[in-house]
């Protein structure tokens, strides 16, 4: 670019791209013999192509084979990947009758709550209808198979959800705990997330600390922090990242078998997740 551009420079670029007809091509080639700036331009354009192609990193045979295997598995595997959501749907459908029973049966403790609420406040049915949907099924919100979460701890509903004017509020307050601990009996172990007003800020801070540990190379601590994050903030949108990064941090800390288990956990939860390819690689390595 240190040379003044000739009027015929566009023709030189067109020639390099093979856009010129035979006669224009020939005349431009002749022009290159006499015009220093156009000759320099042609050299630079060719050099750019050579440089671009020469910077391609060679792919190791092992890397190629892994990618090939992953591709063929992916091509043959959509059936298994789709089966998981279907299984989840079946599980949801199976739990619905239990939820319906809990909401409608005269024997259901939840029924008592409804009656108590309806008797106390006219606006309560809407609130209770919402709770009826959610109370027996909080387990469906997010499955976490982390070893640290093995028990269901029914949360006492926040005070705002319980009509405070009802004289029968004491028995009513206890019933959601009963129904929510009963619902998961036929399903997998689930966890409930405590509703904390500071959970947003706390989640961001926890995630940032785990990321910081990862970037400074403290992989062991980072793995623990990401795992704790996924357990403590199950509703947070970053849980998928945290689950994946747990596997990465474990892999880097040299705990390969733990890393594989974590990667498998990621794949089980997010069969079509953004990091499935690398997670599969960790599992198969």
């Amino acid at each position, binding site marked *: *670019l*240190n040379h003044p551009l000739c009027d015929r420079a*566009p023709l030189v*670029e*067109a020639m390099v*791209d*093979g*856009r010129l007809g035979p006669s224009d091509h020939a005349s431009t080639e002749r022009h290159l013999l006499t015009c220093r700036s156009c000759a320099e331009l042609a050299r*630079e*354009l060719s050099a*750019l*192509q050579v*440089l*671009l*192609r*020469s*910077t*391609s*990193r060679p*792919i190791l045979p092992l890397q*190629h084979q892994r*990618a*090939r295997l*992953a*591709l*063929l598995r*992916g*091509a*043959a595997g959509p059936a298994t990947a789709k089966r998981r959501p279907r299984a989840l749907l079946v599980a949801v459908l199976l739990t619905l009758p239990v939820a319906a029973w809990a909401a409608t049966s005269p024997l259901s403790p939840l029924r008592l709550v409804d009656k108590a609420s309806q008797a106390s406040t006219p606006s309560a049915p809407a609130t209770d209808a919402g709770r009826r949907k959610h109370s027996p099924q909080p387990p469906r919100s997010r499955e976490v198979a982390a070893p640290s979460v093995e028990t269901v701890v029914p949360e006492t509903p926040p005070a705002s959800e319980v009509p405070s004017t009802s004289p029968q509020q004491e028995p009513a307050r206890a019933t959601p705990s009963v129904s929510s601990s009963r619902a998961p009996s036929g399903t997998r172990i689930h966890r409930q997330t405590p509703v904390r007003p500071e959970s947003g800020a706390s989640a961001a801070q926890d995630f940032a600390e785990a*990321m*910081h540990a*990862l*970037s400074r190379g403290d992989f062991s601590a980072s793995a623990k922090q990401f795992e704790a994050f996924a357990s403590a903030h199950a509703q947070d949108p*970053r849980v998928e*990242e945290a689950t994946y*990064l747990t596997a*990465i941090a474990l892999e*880097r800390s040299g705990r390969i078998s733990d890393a594989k288990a974590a990667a498998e956990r990621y794949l089980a939860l997010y069969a079509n997740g*953004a990091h499935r*390819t*690398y997670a599969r690689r960790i599992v198969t390595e």
Partner: protein
Amino acid sequence: MPGVAASGLQLVHATDSELFAGLATGDLGPLGELFDRHHASVRAFAERVLANPADADDLVQETFLTASRAAASFTPGAPAKPFLLGIAAQLARRKRRSFARLRELLASFEHAPMAPRATPEDDLVTGQESAQLNAALGRLPHRHREVVLMVDLGGLSGVEAAKALGIPAGTVWRRLHEARVQLRARVSRRTT
């Protein structure tokens, strides 16, 4: 028998068109052969077209998976590379949008050792000039980058690139010219 698809196609000797035709019938055998032939080109494109080269593995895999599903739309007799790079470019555009949040989140992570490129060893291997070129490519607007990569790296003609990207050929030439001006300026300025 290795090298023979379920349809009886001799994979190694088959043309790209025959492989795509086999794929279109639901036979996945030809997919591995297509991957062997073209994955290097797709990968070279993917590594440079994405802002985060760590996503290249995913993009390569998604490109070939999409190609296998779209095999019926492959024009018999046409070269495979424009078809594959066209798919890769479309997926990369989509990835840019859907992964914008993710990239933000992993911004610090990209500088961790996981990033597959831009290590000092790589710079030594590929040379300082190449590292500068990669940096200059990274600064190009995406629409310029994909065009220059298709033509100057992938070896596609402007018409093939235009067809693959679904834009007029004149737009390809214009973007190509602008991209080259910027690349030459940045690479030559830093080497002088």
